[in-house]
């Protein structure tokens, strides 16, 4: 390991020995983490770059370099633009819903009481189900055969009898958003709650003494002080949504007519369905990766500015 310590200058021997010691120990404790990262993260990423620049079909394997052909094919694919737009639309909607609901629920259950504990549990319970089982659950809920959703909607004349909410692009999008909001609201509530609890109670008391309204307190105290938490939630939520896959894989497979094709769905589609071309899939994965790094560093900057 690279335990580079500063040259020991006179009188600092003890200090630098302690420093070297800390380096050794620190690295030792972080070693398993590093091993995992190198073996299962760095190596696959390097391999990803290699694959992105190679003719590498799913069944035929590696057939040599072909840079930049994979990238050209990805960029000229008719579904690329559409899937990026759809992913962004989905991300914006999901992020708004989850952040607002998360904060709202957190404000409701913030104070500890028996009743609030029951509410918290109710909101959190869906988070214990997996994304796959949540999607399967709603797949059944939405099905015209056994699920109540179609019956309820058609009772109110909102949709055709025997139809499915997954049938059109727009309704499938909202149906999927409902799954995600149901599954993740509690989780974001928890994160927000923790942020709320770190706001000193005296601030609120002082504001109330001054006769500030609830809305005013929320705007002038809660929101500004919650900004780091909100930005953190934003980063999680945006990243998670851009990488949306499981829910669409199970509920719509990108359909109907490719209307719910997310970018990661498209990666899967290139790799295993339409193209069976791991090279193209790797190229698109790489582009997604770069885009995410850029988006996240912008968001992180927002967070850092604030914590100063």
């Amino acid at each position: 390991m690279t335990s580079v310590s500063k040259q020991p200058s006179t009188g600092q021997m003890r200090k630098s020995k302690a420093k070297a010691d800390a380096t050794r120990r620190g690295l030792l404790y972080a070693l398993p983490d590093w091993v995992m990262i190198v073996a299962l993260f760095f190596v696959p990423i390097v391999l990803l770059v290699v694959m992105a620049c190679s003719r590498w079909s799913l069944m035929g394997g590696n057939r040599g370099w072909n840079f930049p052909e994979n990238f050209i094919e990805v960029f000229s694919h008719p579904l690329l633009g559409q899937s990026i737009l759809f992913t962004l639309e989905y991300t914006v909607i999901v992020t708004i819903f989850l952040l607002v609901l998360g904060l709202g629920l957190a404000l409701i259950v913030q104070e500890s009481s028996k009743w609030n504990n029951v509410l918290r549990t109710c909101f959190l319970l869906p988070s214990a189900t997996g994304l796959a089982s949540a999607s399967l659950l709603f797949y059944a809920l939405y099905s015209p055969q056994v699920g109540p959703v179609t019956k309820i909607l058609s009772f109110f004349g909102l949709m055709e009898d025997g139809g499915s909410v997954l049938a059109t692009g727009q309704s499938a999008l909202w149906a999927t958003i409902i799954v995600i909001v149901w599954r993740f609201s509690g989780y974001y509530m928890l994160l927000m709650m923790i942020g709320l609890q770190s706001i000193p109670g005296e601030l609120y008391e002082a504001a109330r003494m001054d006769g500030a309204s609830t809305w005013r307190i929320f705007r002038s105290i809660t929101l500004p002080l919650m900004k780091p938490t909100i930005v953190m939630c934003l980063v999680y939520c945006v990243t998670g949504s851009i990488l949306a896959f499981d829910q669409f894989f199970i509920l719509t497979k990108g359909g109907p007519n490719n209307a719910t094709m997310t970018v990661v769905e498209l990666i899967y589609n290139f790799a295993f369905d339409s193209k069976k071309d791991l090279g193209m899939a790797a190229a698109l994965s790489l582009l997604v990766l770069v885009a995410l790094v850029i988006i996240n560093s912008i968001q992180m900057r927002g967070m850092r500015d604030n914590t100063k």
Partner: protein
Amino acid sequence: MVSFNKVTRTLAGIAAAALLVPLAACGGNGGGSTASADIPAEGTDDGTEITLWTRSPLERQAQAVVEAYNASHENQVKLEIIPNDDMEGRVGGASQTDSLPDILAGDVVRIPYWASEGIFADITEQIDGLDNLDDIQQGHIEAGTVDGAKHTLPFITDVSVWVWNKDLYEQAGLDPEQGPTDIESFTEQAKAVAALDKDGVAGSYLAGQSGGALVFKLFPSVWADGETVMNEDGTEATLTNDSFKAVLDSYRELANTDNGLGAGSKEETGATWTAPFANGNIGVMPYPNTSLNDIFDAEASGGFEVGVTPIAGTSGNTSTFLGGDAMGISKDCKNVAQAWNFLHWLMQSDTQAEVFAANGYTASNIETLKTAYEDADPRIQTINSTIIDGNGQTPKSSAFNEAFNAAGSPYQLLIQNYVWGSGDSLEADNQAITDVLAQ
């Protein structure tokens, strides 16, 4: 479960792998490799476990085949059913990790691509050595032929036929014994059932989001008229012909008729496309024969009566889609001789008669189809006749999956645009398919 058994199996696996190293080394790439000249004509039956993958739509028939083999052989076949939609991904993943099953059966339209990518072992010698080669359904062998090298044999044959619900026909004032004879009568009869205006009942049904079901249902009418869907090499789509237009017009007309196409037709992804007819809610539609067995069973216990007739075109000639699963020995197979034993066994007329004919399933052996169904339901004989008459076809193109079967394929969009959309983009949509096929 993890105990001794697994250890021995692992050791056996290592031993087998060690034996195979020299074999694989002399194999070379592409077009399959591991087949060796040492395989006995009938394969080896020595108590080996053989793994077999097939698609979920054919579960019922596949179970019957495997049970019959396991009951009469030392070798034991372990069957795994893969969901239809995941098949490509699973096979691709397994081929990457060298963990393909010994025998791989897959949708016959996907076979040309798999074979050309070297998924299967070359078993030309063994296939040519079969005594009854000429009797075997050729479409499934041709699908797996690459540059003259043969890789596959038929596992289960699935054909498309027109079926109609006799109970609904009677209510609609149609002759329940007279099914459609051409596209025109198909449309008329569907509209007559639609006119019943019964809750949940519709004239016909389409799987609008399932390219696989749409080729299976619509192509036979084109072939019946002597037209084509692709050029000879499978590099160009030819779906602008009058025959296919007539088919599309028929469905477009039904889509614009109240109750003409069952609710959900436009959105059906193929996961439930046979259910509406099976539940007695559809008048007439093209249907897979493998799903008919369940309906026959239901009929025997008081369900609705169903009629079966071959799919026709505009002229009244008939054809069918020779679908189903073809099987081959995979490149990763460690027990080639044992796997061949299974393939060889299944190709025998006795086996075909025992496993398929006796159960009312459709055999893949012409001789069996002709002789072993004398006591069978006449409707099963109708199904068989579509194979025997030789009019059926299997489309072959290595880009078939991407162009036609894959979710959101250009073919799916063509159908969507014509049947439910503006209906004026046929030329452009056909070109989009060609663009994929030509690459």
